[in-house]
């Protein structure tokens, strides 16, 4: 069936074959990034003052005996040279074994599985919310005249300059303590998601909105819009068909970056709203010198991140035909 299709449409095969090396390169890139991320984290976290053997034995300040420390060091291979430990870790990583968390007495995979969903849900919903808010703002301020442009850009700048923790507490005070509309801390269900999502989405939408408007303005002044106008297309048509599409390119390019900042923001938001998630796990793991969990979470985030960037690159190629010619 496939062969028949190809036979019928020879021009499409050329196009298809370009996807394969692209995909292979991508895959190789993913493996490389995972390796590099694990390596950097492994060595970086060992530079931090504090003894991982202590982290295993009930955390800092526990009055553990020399015998117990030695026992733990031997059991976890912490008495071996650092490079050997690294090779051992890598060996287990290759077969998908992320080890056990020192502090949580649980497998790293288990901890990640428990927390990944919450963070991804939060990040994705926030990303969508931020894009919609940004798009609305950018469209309104591009088309609404001078006043709209000034107010719109002011709103964007203010939104982008608000720290997450301050916004979170202000939203809690407004919507929960004062108005009583929403729960102040995370509860199951969509209602509990509203404030955390707003906290993450508002500053991000300020950012996305700026970039989108820049591109929209560029597009509205560009030759192809002029020619479209010359063809007699209406101003709305021009805007929705061309400017919007043009604005989408940098915005999509930013999606990967935005996802990264959302994960960073999640550390703060998950702490304030008491949502279980990777951000919070990461913070406490770093503070407790929980080496396997830190690396595990970083790898988890890296994987999720690369999934998002691969998808956005794909979207980029679809929206911006120029990039399809570029084999990189």
């Amino acid at each position, binding site marked *: 069936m496939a062969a028949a299709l190809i036979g019928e449409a020879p021009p499409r095969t050329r196009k298809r074959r370009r996807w394969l090396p692209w995909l292979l390169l991508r895959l190789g890139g993913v493996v490389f*990034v995972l390796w590099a991320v694990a390596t950097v984290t492994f060595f970086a976290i060992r530079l931090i003052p504090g003894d991982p053997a202590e982290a295993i034995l009930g955390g800092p300040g526990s009055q553990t005996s020399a015998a117990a420390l030695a026992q733990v060091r031997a059991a976890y291979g912490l008495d071996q040279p650092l490079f050997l430990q690294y090779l051992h870790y890598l060996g287990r990583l290759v077969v998908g074994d992320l080890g056990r968390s020192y502090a949580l007495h649980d497998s790293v995979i288990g901890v990640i599985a428990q927390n990944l969903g919450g963070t991804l849900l939060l990040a994705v919903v926030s990303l969508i919310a931020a894009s919609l808010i940004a798009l609305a703002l950018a469209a309104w301020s591009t088309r609404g005249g001078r006043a709209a442009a000034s107010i719109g850009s002011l709103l964007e700048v203010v939104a982008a300059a608000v720290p997450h923790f301050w916004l979170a507490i202000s939203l809690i005070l407004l919507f929960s303590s004062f108005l009583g509309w929403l729960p102040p801390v995370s509860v199951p269900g969509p209602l509990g998601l509203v404030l955390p999502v707003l906290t993450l989405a508002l500053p991000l939408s300020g950012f996305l909105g700026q970039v989108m408007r820049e591109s929209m303005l560029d597009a509205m002044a560009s030759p192809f819009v002029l020619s479209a106008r010359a063809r007699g297309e209406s101003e709305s048509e021009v805007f929705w068909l061309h400017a919007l599409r043009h604005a989408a390119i940098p915005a999509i390019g930013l999606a990967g970056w935005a996802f990264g900042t959302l994960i960073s923001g999640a550390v703060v938001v998950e702490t304030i709203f008491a949502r279980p998630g990777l951000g919070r796990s990461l913070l406490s793991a770093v503070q407790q010198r929980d080496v396997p969990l830190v690396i595990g979470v970083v790898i988890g985030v890296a994987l999720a991140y690369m999934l998002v960037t691969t998808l956005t690159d794909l979207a980029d190629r679809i929206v911006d035909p120029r990039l399809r010619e570029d084999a990189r």
Partner: protein
Amino acid sequence: MRRFRPVEVFAIVVIALLVIAAVVPGALAPGDPLAIHPLESFRPPSFAHLFGTDESGRDIYTRIVHGTGASLLIGLTATAIGVGLALVFGLLAGLGPRWLDFGTTRFLEVLFAFPGLLLALLFIVIYGPGVVTSTIAVGLATAPGYARIIRSQVLVVRRAPYLEAATVLGRSRTSRIIHHLLPNVSGSLFVLVTLGIGQSIVWASSLSYLGLGAVPPAAEWGAMLSAGRTYITSFWWMTFFPGLFIVLSAVVATMLGRSLQQRLRSS
């Protein structure tokens, strides 16, 4: 040359005031930002204390004025580190030969794959908290984001007709970068940098919230904001005014960037 618009005048005045506050804070606020008056703590804004007092009875207005230098320095330096690194990597990736692009892109991808806050977190936990470490940490953490934007802009611009025309006309590589690429990339770069200054202060304050920022009793806006967070339900002014100044500096920086950009475009 066009006349100055009111927003531009406003931006310039505020920036001038901020610069004065950063260089000679004593001129705007003669008091001592560290002087404590425990028995005058948590006073709301009044004529005696324009922005109220904090938990140790220190005058918040004086602390904000004296904290301008440190805060702007964090913002400027972190953004400079971030954008500087990003410019190098972004241009290498966007302009260099294929293998260089490949290498730099992979390197950037590794940096990207780290959540920015983790980079900052690790850096600070290793080197200890303080203004210098958190500034570098914020710069490092934000660099990949800028780099990515720059690279994608370079890729888009490189395919633009005028650059192809320059290549056809036989302009040298450097000349193409300087005369065509940079001005075109600079549009988004300006927006990024101006936003980045405020953003870096915000980042630094988030680090303070997590207990990794400026060391007390330094009067730094981000640290003040995060110190006031505990009292946000009872004493709003402790977070409102530092927050206002973070936002204000970000806003005027952006305004200035915008109008510069427009002038560049029209000239």
